[in-house]
């Protein structure tokens, strides 16, 4: 029998009262580690400087290799910028759609992971860990080649464009990571909150919805934003399966220019745009983490 009967709290490493403060702190730290995932987006201003230097070197090298009569490297970049930015916008659309779909599915899966029904819990755990540990590119390929290019519903043929399939492929690892973020944050809420709610005669469902989850949102936000930054960077993977996003368009631009020495300049230019987008997100995440770390 569990200590609290029906409102089974997550297990704690110790029941010794003296160790509980330390134990809960360690549990928090462990949960944070888990929810944050293996890598964290930790961009600093210095990274921007490095990128800028890389870009300038690239431009210099390209300029040095330019043949007489060819337009300057900056003019070439400028010419292609509208096309590349349209691609970048596509990256952002893919990231937003994948994040939304992945988050919705992940919340659902995460709730299932804290279910008391053993089959639901185990099933959710297995699903989560399968998609969390599978390489993103493999999932992407699976979705590209296993999903049909069109579906027929009630006689209407609805085409499924490649980018939709790719977005779906990216949303799978997002789903799994969000699921872990949910589970980790639920388990990081002190057991005393469960006990307190139980003693006030709240049902388990009420406890989860009114007391536990509202406290989880704060804790979920930083790792969730971190995940979004990572996803945005991962959207370039879709170029491999033929989606015309920024990376793919850059490759096309390079082959259209057919000019040696442009490689470094163009790719560092692409990198710079990603930095510009992800940097504020990363900084904001760090600030939120610092804010929420003190008043749990």
């Amino acid at each position, binding site marked *: *029998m569990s*200590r*609290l*009967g*029906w409102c089974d709290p997550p297990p704690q490493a110790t*029941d010794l009262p003296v160790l509980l403060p330390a134990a809960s702190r360690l549990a928090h730290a462990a949960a944070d580690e888990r929810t944050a995932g293996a890598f964290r987006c930790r961009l600093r201003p210095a990274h921007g400087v490095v990128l800028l230097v890389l870009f300038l070197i690239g431009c210099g090298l390209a300029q040095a290799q330019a043949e007489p009569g060819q337009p300057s490297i900056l003019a070439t970049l400028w010419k292609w910028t509208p096309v590349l930015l349209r691609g970048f916008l596509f990256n952002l659309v893919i990231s937003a759609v994948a994040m939304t779909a992945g988050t919705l599915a992940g919340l659902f899966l995460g709730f299932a992971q804290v279910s008391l029904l053993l089959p639901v819990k185990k099933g959710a755990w297995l699903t989560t860990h399968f998609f969390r540990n599978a390489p993103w590119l493999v999932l992407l390929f699976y979705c590209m080649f296993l999903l049909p290019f069109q579906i027929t519903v009630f006689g209407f043929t609805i085409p499924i464009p490649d980018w939709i399939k790719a977005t779906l492929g990216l949303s799978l690892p997002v789903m799994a990571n969000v699921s872990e973020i949910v589970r980790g944050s639920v388990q990081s809420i002190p057991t*005393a*909150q469960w*006990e*307190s*709610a*139980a*003693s*006030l*005669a*709240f*049902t*388990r469902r*009420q406890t989860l919805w*009114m*007391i536990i989850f*509202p*406290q989880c949102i704060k804790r979920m936000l930083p790792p969730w934003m971190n995940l979004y930054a990572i996803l945005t960077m991962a959207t370039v993977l879709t170029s491999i399966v033929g989606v015309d996003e920024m990376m793919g368009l850059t490759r096309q631009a390079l082959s259209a220019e057919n000019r040696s020495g442009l490689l470094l300049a163009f790719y560092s230019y692409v990198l710079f745009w990603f930095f510009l987008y992800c940097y504020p997100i990363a900084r904001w995440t760090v600030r939120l983490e610092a804010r929420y770390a003190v*008043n*749990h």
Partner: protein
Amino acid sequence: MPAANADPIVVIDDVHKSFGKVEVLKGVSLSVPKGGVVCIIGPSGSGKSTLLRCINGLVPIDQGSIRVANFDVHKLKTDQEKIALRKEVSIVFQQYNLFPHKTALENVMMAPIHVLREDRGEVYLRAVALLKKVGLSAKEAVYPGELSGGQQQRVAIARSLAMRPEVMLFDEVTGALDPETVKEVLNTIQELARDGMTCMLVTHEMHFAREIADEVYFTDGGVIVESGPPGELFDRPVKERTRAFLSQIL
């Protein structure tokens, strides 16, 4: 002061409880009359807090019986039955355990609205009155994180009272407070007891126990070593163990 044998509301009989191999309660029996105030004292680890948690069904017991009002606590199986019990028996914890994302007033109002499904307007009036009673009218809109320990504990007491329980359990409620704020919490409890609320307190505040209790139980090693009215137990303890404990602490 009600007589000890008049109309008991809590009857605990030969309760045993083990956590793994450690037997925390080794046959505890006691009863509390309606409106009575009982204090349980004893060294740490003697099973006092566990006993309180057994009474409102937070901890299931292994053997024996607990009867509270009309509930046979040891027989309650389903969530619904336990929830019904907990509407009658409320517990206040050492660490207050307020809900940090809700204001003081919301903390008090939450359970009556969502558990008892009472009218929001009525609950609001009652919550305001309760916060006034514990002297925190000015703190209605304040979040627990901005309250002192003593204030949080008084909100916790108001939160329990809002459920209009028959029995209030206090689990070392002053244990985490500094000496100055202990007084404000004890005053609140004393007022409750005076109003006729049935109270069971686990406490280390011996002077308070002497002042407030009808009956004091001294527990050690999972059993009740000695019990009696405070005057007798504190001044003329019979058992050697009780004397040793009291001489250490008084």
